[in-house]
C-alpha cells in the first residue's frame, strides 16, 4: 500500500512497521535544545547518566540560543552558561547569541535536510516541514533521552491533505495564505495529524513562504505540515548539507484520513485578531475602525527571512513610519542580517525610523524586542497572539505587507491601499 510523506520518512528511520496509530522507535538525525530548555535537558542528563557517555553522537547534537539573546537577566545568563560549559566539556556545537532562531539555523547550517528527523525543545520545530523534513518539539526529559539514545518514540499520525485552489495575487503573500488555511481549519482542524499541502500556490512558494506556512501548523493543531521540496529547496539544502540525503514524496495511492480544499482565488489580506490565531478576518474589514497601531513587529520564525524584511524595505523607501508608531524589525538569523547589511537595506530602514535588532525570537519568547504594555496595540508577523504572550497588550497577526502598511499610516491598514 502507498505511503504518505511522514510514513516514508519514518520507514527510513525505523525498523518498526509504520502504520498510523502505531508507536515506533524513530532514529533521530538531529537533537537540539535552546537556551530556554537546554539547561534542564543537561540537568536530566547529569542526573540519570552521571558516570557514562551522555550523548549518542556529538555531531548530531546542537544547542541554539534564540529565546533571549543576548541574555537580558541573570536567570537566562546562567542557563546559557550552563549550556556553554556542558558543550565545551562534551565537545558539541553551540550556536550562541549572535546566530538567530534555532530552527532556521538548523536548516541554514545544513543540519536539517529534506527527509531528515529532528527534535528539540522548541514547540515550533515542526517548521522543518518547510523543506520536507520531520521536526518535533518535546519536553526536556524527552530531549535528554533523545540526546542519550539517538532515537525517540513516536506515534505515527494519520495524514490529511490540504489542497489549495487558486493562486496568490499581490499584495497577498504566504502569510495570508497561511491565515486563510487557519481560518478554514481552526485551531483544532489538524489535531493529531500530519498535513500535506498541495496545489499550484504551494508549489510556487519560495523558501521563505514555505517557512511561513509550515511554522503555523502548530496553530492548526497539527503535528507537522509537509511542503514537498522542489528543485530550489533541494539544491539549497545540497549546498549546505553535511552528508547525502533523500527527499521523500507521497505515493500516488497513499492513504489520507481527510481532504480539505481551501480556495484562495478571492483572497484579500487577512489578519488574526487578539487573542487567537484562528480569529481571522479581512484587514479591510477593520480599516473603518481606525485602530491605532502603537507598535509594528516584523520578524519571528514565521516571517523573519530576508524576503519578508525586504517587503518593508521596498515599502519604506524614502518615507518614515507614522509619527506615533514604533516599527521593530528582527531578522531570523545572522545571515539574514548580513544580507540586509550587504544590500544597503539597513540604510533605508534607518531613514524610515525603524528599530532593527540582532537576530532571535525577540518578543515572541519574552525577549527584548516586541513586548507590549497594557492597552498597547501591536501588529505582528508572529504566529501567536494569546493573551499575555507578548506582554499585556493586544496583538494582531498579519503579513509583512500589512504590518508595514499599518506602520506607515499608524492604524491597521490593508496593503491594498498603499
Amino acid at each position, binding site marked *: 500500500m502507498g505511503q504518505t510523506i511522514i510514513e516514508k520518512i519514518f520507514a527510513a528511520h525505523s525498523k518498526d512497521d509504520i502504520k498510523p496509530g502505531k508507536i515506533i522507535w524513530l532514529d533521530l538525525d538531529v537533537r537540539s535544545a535552546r537556551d530556554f530548555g537546554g539547561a534542564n535537558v543537561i540537568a536530566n542528563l547529569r542526573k540519570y547518566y552521571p558516570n557514562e557517555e551522555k550523548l549518542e553522537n556529538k555531531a548530531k547534537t546542537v544547542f541554539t540560543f534564540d529565546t533571549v539573546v543576548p541574555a537580558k537577566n541573570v536567570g537566562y545568563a546562567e542557563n546559557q552558561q550552563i549550556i556553554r560549559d556542558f558543550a565545551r566539556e562534551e565537545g558539541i556545537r553551540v550556536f550562541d547569541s549572535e546566530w538567530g532562531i534555532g530552527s532556521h539555523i538548523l536548516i541554514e547550517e545544513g543540519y536539517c535536510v529534506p527527509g531528515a528527523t529532528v527534535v528539540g525543545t522548541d514547540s515550533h520545530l515542526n517548521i522543518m516541514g518547510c523543506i520536507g523534513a520531520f521536526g518535533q518539539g*518535546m519536553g526536556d*526529559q524527552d530531549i535528554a533521552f533523545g540526546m542519550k*539514545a539517538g532515537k525517540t*518514540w513516536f506515534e505515527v499520525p494519520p495524514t490529511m491533505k490540504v489542497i489549495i485552489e487558486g493562486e496568490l495575487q499581490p499584495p497577498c503573500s504566504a502569510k495570508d495564505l497561511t491565515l486563510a488555511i487557519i481560518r478554514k481549519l481552526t485551531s483544532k482542524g489538524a489535531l493529531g495529524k500530519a498535513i500535506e499541502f498541495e496545489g499550484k500556490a504551494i508549489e510556487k512558494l519560495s523558501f521563505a513562504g514555505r517557512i511561513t506556512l509550515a511554522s503555523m501548523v502548530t496553530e492548526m493543531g497539527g503535528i507537522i505540515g509537509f511542503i514537498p521540496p522542489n528543485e530550489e529547496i533541494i539544491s539549497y539544502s545540497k549546498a549546505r548539507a553535511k552528508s547525502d540525503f533523500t527527499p521523500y514524496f507521497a505515493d500516488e495511492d497513499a492513504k489520507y484520513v481527510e481532504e480539505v480544499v481551501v480556495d484562495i482565488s478571492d483572497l484579500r489580506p487577512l489578519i488574526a485578531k487578539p487573542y487567537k490565531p484562528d480569529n481571522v478576518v479581512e484587514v479591510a474589514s477593520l480599516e473603518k475602525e481606525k485602530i491605532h497601531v502603537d507598535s509594528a513587529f516584523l520578524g519571528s520564525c514565521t516571517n523573519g527571512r530576508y524576503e519578508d524584511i525586504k517587503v518593508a524595505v521596498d515599502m519604506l523607501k524614502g518615507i518614515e513610519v507614522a509619527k506615533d508608531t514604533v516599527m521593530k524589525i528582527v531578522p531570523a538569523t545572522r545571515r539574514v542580517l548580513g544580507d540586509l547589511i550587504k544590500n544597503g537595506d539597513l540604510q533605508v530602514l534607518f531613514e524610515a525610523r525603524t528599530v532593527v535588532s540582532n537576530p532571535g525570537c525577540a518578543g515572541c519568547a519574552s525577549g527584548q524586542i516586541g513586548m507590549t504594555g497594557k492597552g498597547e496595540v501591536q501588529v505582528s508577523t508572529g504566529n501567536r497572539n494569546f493573551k499575555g504572550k507578548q506582554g499585556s497588550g493586544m496583538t494582531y497577526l498579519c503579513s509583512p505587507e500589512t504590518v508595514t502598511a499599518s506602520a506607515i499610516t499608524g492604524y491597521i491598514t490593508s496593503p491594498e491601499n498603499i
Partner: protein
Amino acid sequence: MAKPIELKGRAVVIRDKDGKPIDDIDTDMIFHNKYLHIKKIEEMGQYTFDNLEGWKDFAKKAQKGDILILGANFGAGSSRQQAVDCFISLGIQLLIAKSFGAIYKRNAINAGLPILQADIIDEKKLIETGDELVVNLQTGEIKNLTKNHTFKTEGMSQVQMDIYQAGNLFEYAKTL
C-alpha cells in the same frame, strides 16, 4: 528482573453516577494543581482523583494491583507528570482507556506505567468494578474471570514494552 506480561487484578471502572463513561478527564481532575508542590511519589497517591466528581474517595478505596477502565481522552490538558505518578504511587497496575491525551500518553509510557487503548468501558454488562481480570499486555487479550468474557484488543507496542520492561525511559537508555 523482567516485568510480568500477564497482569492479574481487580477492575475499577470509572463511570459517572448514571453509569456513563467519564470522557475528557483532565490532569487537573486527576491530580489537582494545588498539590504540585509535592515531590515524593509515595505521597502523591492520596490525592488521586480528588477533583473528580463522584470519585473523590478513590485513593481510599483503591487497592494495590487495581486495573482502571477509563473513557475517551483520558489525561487531557497539561503535561503534568504527577497525573501519571499518582497512579504508580497507589500501585495501580494498568490503565485501560478508550483513548489517552497525547502528552499523557508520552508521560505514562516514559514513566513505565503500562497503558492499553481499548474500547470496553461501554460494555456495562461485561465489565464492572470488582471483576477479576487477567490482561496480557502483549496480545491485548483482556479476560474477565468473573463474567467469563474475553475482550480482544490491541496489545502494547514494542516501544512501550521495551520501556516498561526497563522500568522507565531513562533506565531503558542505559540498556542500549
